[in-house]
């Protein structure tokens, strides 16, 4: 026991003498655990939020009662149903209000008094509905925290609306309970929206008997519609979380490389201590135990600190994450973070596992050495050649494995494993490439150049110490380039898509009481109206997934320019020209990638007249849509579903200056202010949301690079410590500062460039896999891969920056320590 404690003390005292190493070990551990746990915390937090979000009013309704003509449900109809004893029915008003400062806020309202018991039970927000103030003038407007923040609201302020109305006094909530929406009582909501009808009635689960009763009780202009859009958010967002987890694991891997480096060096420096301990009779077992204990200590310290950092980081990243989920899935997550015990335990286990991996190999090498002979760096680099060869062989093996696996990949997890294999193969092949570059440099240098030869030989000696750091750098660069290309491609694809989708000038919501026929009947309309696309929709289920049938005007400008990804020339023209032989539809890619449909294939869809076949004419891009969607000319749609739900109407103007005329005409045709939007604002808003969506990815990405930079710094510092006496000897032999820096930095710069060069194709491969394999598998839509050299250039500059910082730190250390080392030259060092 005392032997063990003695050994442990001797081992740990090393860090006292070399605090740098302790620091780098910690940095590696913290960086790895920190990034990983930050994502973990966010993920589990988001999942917890979905469960809450699933209980948001209306989304948990099993049926909706809507007006057949798409207008609202009158309060008379509603009260009539309640009088008939249908207590399962409760009213919902939804709409978008525009503030006086032109901010658009979603609004939802219900009557808390009539909410059925099951809604009250599951809905966390309704707890406080007992408060009478909510249902009595002046009423209350409940704002979720993020929305309140966005609007800069303080409690009890009354938001002024563009239509001249004011909202009831604001109550700021501590939790996001209704999503990013203001929650009101029905009466103030109708007033704010200047509407007299309810949007729809929500219905809790019904027995089939009760369902028939309700259907029979409905007046002819109302319809009972099953809520097919209630999709499990957890299921929808899974892909995104998997992707994030993979990214965090990647940063963990980078952290692991640093730890591996640090542990290797710390053991290397401690070989005299280890030798002395063995010489004074400490057994190998006791030493192993002592090192094991040290590992446990480090893992506890490292994971605790890492978790702290991760917690702080998740606080910073959460807003970006919320934006991602909101824009992709309409999912809402609150801003309250909890650190779960499982995350803590997992972090510690991962750290311990990582440390053991990082320790096992060097330790095994260390204890295998005979007790006596002192190994110098010179013999160490000779054995390195063998290690490099093994790594290269392993890399080749992995590449072959990747090629074999590639066609077999079918799930996202398998896809990430494939990515991991590719990245690891790249990293393991790197040392051989670095060695090759040095050999080539040697060839290039003049044969008789003595300094050149010295530089090369010295490079060989630095390689074993630097290669791990270079591998970490490679991983970080590759991940950066890959994700950068992904985001860049997505940005271009999305803006092109928006360009086409939002090509119209005005966009009128489907819920508006605006009547297109009235507008058209007015002779003056023809002077400004260029084109119209009236969109309708029918929601069905297909392959147990929601399927949206979108009815469109086939001749509208945007319909003619739908982004086709796959088509047969004949079929697309048949669709465009309203061929009546078959029911041609356009399908979104999701139906191809996730639903495995092909062009020309028939879909049997449930229509009011029974199952009818529809044929796929082409596939279109549909970025980010989690649902299957079909595009079908309104005329065809209406032959099967005579009264589809109105969706929206796009209007094209002859001239942008006609806008005031058009708006007046809309008002005359029954639309209310706030029913329409001018498209350019939507487009800008969409792009803004998108930029925020990827803010999180970008944040993690650049952190990874800095972590790799620290790895490089750690490796160089370790090399410096080891070589300080050697540098002193060089100085004694008359080597000047310039020559010394040349020898130290040329191989470093050479390898950093090689690493960067290798990262380019590897990054391209990564982004290709991300876009064409993983994205398609995860989300069911594809996009063209855009490769730009700009991020690569930025990364080159960043890498140079990291190296420059590293060299400055090393130079400062040298300046500080070299005189002392010089003075000790010849003495016992």
């Amino acid at each position, binding site marked *: 026991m005392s032997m063990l404690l003695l050994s442990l003390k001797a081992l740990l005292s090393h860090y006292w003498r070399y605090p740098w190493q302790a620091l780098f070990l910690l940095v590696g551990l913290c960086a790895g655990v920190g990034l990983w746990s930050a994502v973990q915390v966010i993920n589990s937090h988001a999942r917890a939020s979905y469960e809450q979000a699933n209980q948001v009013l209306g989304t948990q309704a099993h049926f909706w009662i809507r007006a057949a003509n798409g207008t609202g449900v009158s309060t008379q109809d509603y009260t009539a149903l309640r009088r008939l004893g249908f207590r399962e029915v409760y009213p919902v008003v939804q709409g978008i209000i525009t503030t006086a400062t032109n901010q658009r806020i979603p609004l939802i309202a219900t009557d808390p008094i009539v909410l059925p018991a099951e809604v009250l039970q599951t809905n966390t927000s309704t707890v406080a509905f007992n408060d009478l103030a909510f249902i009595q003038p002046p009423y209350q407007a409940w704002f979720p925290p993020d929305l309140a923040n966005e609007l800069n609201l303080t409690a009890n302020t009354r938001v002024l609306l563009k239509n001249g109305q004011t909202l009831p006094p604001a109550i700021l909530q501590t939790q996001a309970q209704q999503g990013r929406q203001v929650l009101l009582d029905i009466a103030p909501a109708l007033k704010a929206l200047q509407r007299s009808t309810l949007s729809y009635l929500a219905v809790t689960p019904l027995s089939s008997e009760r369902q028939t009763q309700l259907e029979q009780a409905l007046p002819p202009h109302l319809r009972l519609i099953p809520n097919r859009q209630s999709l499990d958010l957890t299921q929808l967002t899974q892909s995104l979380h998997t992707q994030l987890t993979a990214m965090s694991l990647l940063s963990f891997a980078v952290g692991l490389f640093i730890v591996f480096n640090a542990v290797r060096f710390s053991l290397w420096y401690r070989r005299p201590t280890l030798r002395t301990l063995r010489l004074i009779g400490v057994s190998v077992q006791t030493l192993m135990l002592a090192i094991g204990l040290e590992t446990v200590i480090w893992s506890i310290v490292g994971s605790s600190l890492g978790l702290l950092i991760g917690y702080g980081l998740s606080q910073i990243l959460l807003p970006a994450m919320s934006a991602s989920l909101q824009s992709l899935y309409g999912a809402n997550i609150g801003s309250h973070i909890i650190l779960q015990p499982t995350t803590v335990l997992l972090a510690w286990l991962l750290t311990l596992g990582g440390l053991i991996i990082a320790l096992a190999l060097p330790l095994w090498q260390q204890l295998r050495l005979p007790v006596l002979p002192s190994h*110098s760096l010179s013999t160490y680099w000779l054995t390195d050649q063998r290690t490099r060869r093994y790594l290269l062989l392993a890399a080749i093996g992995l590449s072959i494995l990747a090629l074999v696996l590639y066609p077999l990949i079918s799930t996202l997890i398998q896809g990430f494993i494939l990515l991991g294999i590719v990245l690891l193969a790249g990293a393991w092949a790197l040392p051989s490439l670095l060695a090759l570059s040095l050999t080539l440099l040697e060839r290039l240098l003049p044969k008789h150049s003595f300094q050149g030869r010295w530089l090369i030989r010295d490079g*060989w000696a630095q390689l074993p110490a630097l290669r791990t750091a270079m591998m970490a750098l490679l991983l970080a660069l590759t991940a950066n380039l890959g994700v950068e290309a992904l985001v860049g491609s997505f940005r271009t694809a999305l803006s092109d898509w928006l360009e086409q989708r939002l090509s119209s000038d005005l966009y009128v919501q489907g819920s508006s009481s605006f009547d297109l026929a009235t507008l058209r009947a007015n002779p003056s309309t023809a002077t400004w109206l260029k084109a119209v696309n009236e969109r309708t929709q029918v929601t069905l289920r297909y392959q147990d997934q929601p399927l949206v049938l979108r009815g469109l005007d086939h001749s509208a400008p945007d319909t003619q320019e739908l982004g086709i990804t796959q088509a047969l020339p004949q079929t697309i023209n048949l669709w465009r020209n309203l061929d009546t032989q078959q029911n041609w539809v356009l399908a979104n890619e999701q139906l191809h990638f996730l639903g495995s449909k092909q062009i020309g294939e028939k879909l049997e869809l449930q229509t009011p007249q029974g199952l009818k076949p529809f044929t796929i004419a082409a596939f279109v891009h549909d970025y980010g849509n989690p649902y299957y969607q079909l595009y079908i000319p309104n005329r065809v749609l209406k032959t099967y579903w005579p009264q589809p739900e109105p969706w929206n109407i796009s209007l094209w103007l002859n001239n942008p200056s006609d806008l005031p005329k058009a708006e007046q005409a809309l008002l005359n045709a029954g639309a209310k202010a706030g029913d329409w939007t001018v498209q350019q604002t939507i487009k800008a808003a969409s792009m803004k949301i998108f930029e925020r969506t990827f803010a999180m990815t970008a944040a993690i990405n650049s952190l990874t690079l800095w972590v790799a930079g620290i790895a490089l710094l750690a490796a160089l510092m370790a090399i410096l410590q080891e070589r300080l006496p050697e540098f002193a000897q060089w100085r004694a032999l*008359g080597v000047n500062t310039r020559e010394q820096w040349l020898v130290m930095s040329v191989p470093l710069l050479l390898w950093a460039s090689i690493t960067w060069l290798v990262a380019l194709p590897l990054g391209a491969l990564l982004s290709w896999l991300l876009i064409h394999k993983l994205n398609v598998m995860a989300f069911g839509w594809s996009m063209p891969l855009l490769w730009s050299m700009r991020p690569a250039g930025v990364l080159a500059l960043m890498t140079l920056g990291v190296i420059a910082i590293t060299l400055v730190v090393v130079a400062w250390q040298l300046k500080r320590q070299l005189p002392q080392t010089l003075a000790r030259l*010849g003495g016992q060092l």
Partner: protein
Amino acid sequence: MLELIQLSKAYRQPDGYSTPILSNLNFQLGAGQSAALLGASGSGKSTLLHLIAGLDKPDAGHILIQQQSLTDLTESQLAQLRRTTISLIFQQFYLISTLSVADNIRFQAQLAKRYNAQWEAELIERLDLTSQLQKYPHQLSGGQQQRVAIARALLHKPALVLADEPTGNLDEHSSEQVMALLSELVKQAGSSLLMVTHSKVMAGYLDQQYWLKSGVLHSKESA
């Protein structure tokens, strides 16, 4: 050639007191002359050698090498001086582990651009290193390594060779062999030699002997 005037050096101890190592030391060594520096362990012999090589700075006094005062020189001028004018030989040899024996021998001469193939061939032959040239330092015995260090120190024919217990790590037989070669080759190169040693036998190979005691040098006769 080498002149030390009123040289003083003290080290500050952890307890705050400073211990004088050298105090007002005066010394002269003519061109081509050799001198042995003897003294008790800790008397400051290595310190003195470091000061002369410009690896450390004196607290007071002057060091003149070929009439040039070291105190006036910048770090890069000192490096230039060490590569052209002064050679150091240490007890631990200090060969460059990544370079072959041949490259180690040439190291200083190449940096100083004073490489002379004929003199190199002669050194290699005299030091019996012909069959070792392609090897690396760790593949040599201690005596062989010290002979490589001697060849390296002499190839560029420096004006002054400073040796700190060059035979301290060698057995008696190789010590005498190395010492004989060193004193002979230094003469042949035309360099001056100042050598620290504990051994009177080794000191006997050189022209003069000095004792370092209480911070000053005493010639052997007066000691």
